[in-house]
């Protein structure tokens, strides 16, 4: 009798139990995944995007970092301390990133989602937990102000600097700012927070230099832009066009421009439309396309040669060999360099084991001047970066590069942004943030 009861009680319980089981799987899985690093190791969880629409470039960035970490480890670690990284896939989906964040909470040393929406969603949490969230050339533009945003940083070139530097580049091509007067600049951008950030910069510079600019917002995924380009080329008759697309909408203008007869040499892309993945779908039509970038391209950097030699040739690469040296990959490597520098400073400053605050403090001590970059074998790969407690990076120069159908070639020197407008915008936005959050 007892036996029977017990069996009946159990067997139907299995029916709705799939969910319960999956929950249990989650519980039991947790300790396994967040395996504790050995003594004297830095355990470094990473948010990665290897699925979905943004995986193409984002995967290169993640793998580039990992290759650099592998190189550091192969060279004996940071003064003997090795890095043990662990991925959490979020597929560029904000809720999944939040879950990942919580899953590894307390173990984060520095968070780099490579997604601006995620930085926004995490910013409160990061501040509470005292973990630095970085998003190179993205994230929260005003977090250049390290005083208002102690645990956020754009690291390099916030969105406003990108826009300002791009205008300066166009001015240089025209032969100076004075020549901008009366010129028409078309701004093609995604109709979201990312795409609209340059507005104040354009407004300010248009007023000062007397050029005319007009916005063509495109709703995500912006795979169809023909009406905008007919308008730009046939009615507005722009002298220059700037694109602020993202991911797979980057290559669409190249086909459209050709169709409406807009010259590609008068077209400049944001640095987020400056990787191989952004141009290859357009094939030959992308030849001659110019985009901004915040780092050097190609394999000609000692650090990358060293990675090939010590990581890939040993069969320990974290990415297909043919993607080494791509824009996304180099971004990963230089991000790795910055993170490792922060780790190194933190260890030197506060000792092991590391936590979020120590790494943030280490980040603020980063001084990647010419000498240091040379030591790291990264001269020309990234601009000089010097951070402080009040300056979290973001006002740096851009490089400009041209696609020749096969590879990118850098065609300019470092082009600095107009610092005054950028700083004014940071000040305004930081004040607005303080007002909203009643600080």
């Amino acid at each position, binding site marked *: 009798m007892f036996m029977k009861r017990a069996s*009946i009680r159990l067997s*139907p319980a299995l029916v709705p139990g799939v*969910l319960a089981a*999956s929950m249990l799987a*989650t519980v039991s*899985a947790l300790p396994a995944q967040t395996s504790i690093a050995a003594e004297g190791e830095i355990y470094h969880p990473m948010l990665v995007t*290897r699925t979905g629409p943004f995986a193409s470039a984002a995967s290169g960035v993640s793998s580039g970092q990992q290759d650099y970490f592998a190189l550091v480890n192969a060279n004996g670690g940071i003064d003997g301390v090795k890095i043990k990284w662990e991925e959490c896939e979020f597929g560029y989906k*904000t809720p999944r990133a939040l*879950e990942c964040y919580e899953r590894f909470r307390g173990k984060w040393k520095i968070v780099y989602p490579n997604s601006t929406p995620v930085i926004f969603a995490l910013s409160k949490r990061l501040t509470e937990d005292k973990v630095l969230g970085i998003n190179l050339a993205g994230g929260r533009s005003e977090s250049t102000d390290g005083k208002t945003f102690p645990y956020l940083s754009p690291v390099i070139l916030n969105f406003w600097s990108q826009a300002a530097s791009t205008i300066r580049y166009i001015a240089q091509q025209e032969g100076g700012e004075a020549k901008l007067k009366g010129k028409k600049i078309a701004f093609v951008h995604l109709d979201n927070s990312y795409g609209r950030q340059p507005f104040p910069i354009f407004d300010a510079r248009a007023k000062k230099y007397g050029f005319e600019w007009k916005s063509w917002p495109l709703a995500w995924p912006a795979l169809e832009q023909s009406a905008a380009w007919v308008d730009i080329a046939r009615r507005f008759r722009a002298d220059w066009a700037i694109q602020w697309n993202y991911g797979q909408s980057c290559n669409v203008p190249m086909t459209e421009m050709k169709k409406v007869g807009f010259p590609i040499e008068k077209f400049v892309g944001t640095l987020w439309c400056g990787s191989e993945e952004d141009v290859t779908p357009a094939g030959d039509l992308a030849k001659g396309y110019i985009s901004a970038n915040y780092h050097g391209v190609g394999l000609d950097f000692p650090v990358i040669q060293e990675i090939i030699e010590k990581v890939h040739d040993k069969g320990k690469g974290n990415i297909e060999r043919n993607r080494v040296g791509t824009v996304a990959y180099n971004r990963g490597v230089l991000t790795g360099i910055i993170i490792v520098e922060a780790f190194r400073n933190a260890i030197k400053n506060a000792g092991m084991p590391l936590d979020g605050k120590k790494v943030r403090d280490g980040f603020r001590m980063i001084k990647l001047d010419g000498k240091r970059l040379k030591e790291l074998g990264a001269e020309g790969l990234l601009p000089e970066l010097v951070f402080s407690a009040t300056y979290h990076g973001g006002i740096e120069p851009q490089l400009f590069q041209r696609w020749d159908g096969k590879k990118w070639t850098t065609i300019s020197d470092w082009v600095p942004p107009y610092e005054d407008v950028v700083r004014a915008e940071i000040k305004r936005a930081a004040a607005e943030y303080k007002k909203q959050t009643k600080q």
Partner: protein
Amino acid sequence: MALSDARTPSPHGLERDMRYLPRSADRLALFLLVVLFLFVPPFLGDYWLKGILVPMLILSISALGLNVLTGYAGLISLGQAAFMAVGAFAGVIAYGRYGIPIPLTLLIAGLTAAIVGAVVGTPSLRIKGLYLLVATLAAQFIIVWTIQRVPWIGAGSMVTIDTPPVFIGTWEIDTALEQYYFALAVAALLTIFAWNLTRSRIGRAWMAIRDHDVAAKVMGISMLRYKLLAFMVSAFYGGIAGALVVFAWVGAANVQEYELELSIQILGMTIIGGLGSILGSYLGAAFIALLPIAISIGMHNLYGIVGGEIVSAAVLANAEHVVFGVLIVLFLIFEPLGLAHIWRRFSARFEIWLGPAVRT
């Protein structure tokens, strides 16, 4: 038994009919759930609270709202995420800009969404099924577009508004546990409200419309009133869920989190969970929101056990999608009526098995 009969004057057991949970298995399960949800979380880490439970509660509220519309009134909507966005922004503006107390703010968020919902629901008077689906889809796009464009909303070029610290009276909701209980309290209230409502005259009117709208009409049920009411209630729930995203989870209203994909997910939750079932809204939210996480962790572990070099991380991550897709399809084939129906079958069987014991 004897006592309860004495208190019930009616020979028909009217009170009996109106009991919330006629089955003992249901009562037992509810009791366990209440204990679980009330007393266990303090012992769980922040991961469970912030990573799993709070988002799940919020999504469940939203799914519950959609279930009122789709499961009870038989109307489809792909605009639930947009209602959440309306609630999120209405909430953050009411609380952040005007300093309205949080309980009132939640109400305002819900009501604003409800008004928008009434407008979005008007096509339902003429069309249904797939046509209605696309009409609400239009609303999804138009609402999100409008939030970005109306200067008064003040979403700015970032289309994000941060919230100040969240206070109810003098109680600051800042730890994960507090946020969890806050969300739980709202979810519990809304669940009881929906539970009552769907069993009331209004709920019956909705189900009448769903099952046979012509017959409902000649019983005197106004299509205009009840269809719009269903849209409003559904949007109200969505709006409150959106506000909770701001106040109990993320801390900011960001329009990019309320895109079509979320609407589709919420519709999936109500269907996989079970149309016309309150429990189903919760189960569905758990399925759609948590299963991918469980799969991800599970496969990661498997990968860890099997060992590194066999498959790349990218293959693994994509395989999660495939597994998730397969599970959706399998569940639907196995139980097209939804997860809640599995439970209902179990609890019925349990009741039969328990039968004699209860009667003695």
